[in-house]
């Protein structure tokens, strides 16, 4: 011991850059989540379609999306696709899409579970009083499903937030990326990565406890109602 003297001042000195990186991390995770919600809703809807082909296709896509590591998706989209088909995504776009595919595959399952959890009697009753399919989905099923879906959705966002730390491998200048290049300049990797780790733990824990609160709140309401 004693070979390495810690210098936490380095964090203070580079705080503005690190915070700029953190904002990019938040941005890319939110963009990824937006894609995930779109993909998820789309594929969940397909799974409830009357056409078997669509069910099978959406099921396979969801399976594949859940099986691929985010790391592979990032490289596949950013280096693979761009070189092969000359689709040039920026690093940020590629990262958001990769996050969106991973998250979307999980969101599809969440949506499906939420919609399935609504008692069939609810839609039957809605049809009986003369609502059409669209109205039944919009007014009866979805409002109830959201209550079930919301906590899990926040959990998936936590996952994406943690996943967003690896987008620096394709060059997105997020907080990890900043930590990396500052540590190359200053030879202080330990302090910088530790700081990044602590920030992430604080961030994910606060979002996760929000999900927990939400779950308690919503389940309490549904029990009373």
């Amino acid at each position: 011991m004693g070979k390495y003297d810690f210098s936490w001042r380095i964090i203070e000195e580079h705080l503005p850059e690190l915070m700029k990186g953190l904002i990019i991390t938040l941005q890319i995770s939110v963009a990824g989540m937006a894609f995930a919600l779109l993909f998820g809703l789309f594929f969940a809807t397909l799974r409830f379609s009357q056409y078997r082909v669509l069910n099978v296709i959406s099921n396979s896509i969801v399976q594949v999306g859940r099986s691929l590591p985010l790391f592979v998706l990032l490289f596949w989209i950013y280096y693979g696709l761009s070189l092969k088909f000359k689709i040039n995504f920026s690093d940020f776009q590629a990262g958001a899409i990769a996050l969106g595919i991973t998250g979307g595959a999980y969101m599809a399952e969440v949506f499906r579970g939420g919609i399935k959890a609504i008692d069939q009697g609810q839609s039957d009753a809605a049809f009986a009083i003369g609502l059409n399919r669209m109205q039944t989905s919009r007014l009866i099923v979805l409002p109830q499903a959201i209550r079930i879906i919301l906590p899990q959705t926040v959990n998936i966002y936590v996952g994406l937030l943690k996943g967003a730390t690896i987008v620096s491998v394709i060059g997105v200048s997020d907080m990890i990326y900043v930590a990396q290049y500052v540590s190359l300049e200053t030879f202080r990797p330990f302090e910088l990565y530790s700081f990044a780790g602590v920030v992430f733990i604080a961030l994910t824990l606060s979002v996760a406890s929000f999900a927990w609160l939400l779950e308690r709140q919503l389940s309490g309401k549904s029990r009373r109602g």
Partner: protein
Amino acid sequence: MDSSVPLFDFAAVWSSRTLLLEGFGIAMFCATAAIILAMIIGLLIALMRLSNSRFLRGFAFVYTQLFRGVPLYVLVIWVYFGLAIVADINLPKIPAGIITLALLNSGYLSETFRSGILAVNIGQSEAAAAIGLTKRQIKRYIVLPQAFRIVLAPSGNQFVDAIKDTAILSIIGVPELMRMAQQQADLFYRPFEFYTTAGILYFIAVMGVTKLFSFIEKKMNRIGFTNGSQKVANVGEYI
């Protein structure tokens, strides 16, 4: 694109098949070793959280929150480079990767195990106490075997996550599948083919493990080992 260069050329992938398969083997080894370690640690932490000692409970709580909150990227760098800097512990790459994955997954598994143990009907322990088993015997012979069946499916999911997570170990240079694919892709300048192949291999591994676990689960259900429909959800803990 130059017309003399074929659009898809998987010949390069085929010529590096031994390297890729070696990487695949290392990835599966890391995931398996890590999940076994994680199950042992996770069980200990779960028992600590359910113990009577305030200190043990507090420690287990902090442990769980810490390793569920930290991103794998940071943790792997911390274990591999951080420990070397701070404590002069120079772990080789593969053990460092395994320890990282084990720490991360033990955080999730301890929560799964805890809810699995709690899901075992309290009447079971009461009945066991009534026929004179000690506390330790009740845990060992009554609660844990039943909890095991409940946590089987979520543990399978955790194993799947561990397999996917091995890709991130390439950051510290563990020669697993993604690292090999990266190197070969750069060498042949064929990223699309190599990353597609890597993706297919991960897909096969994940599907294999998923099928294996649902097979075991079905087997147990058939024998009548299942104890009701309580399942522990761990959706969203996947990256």
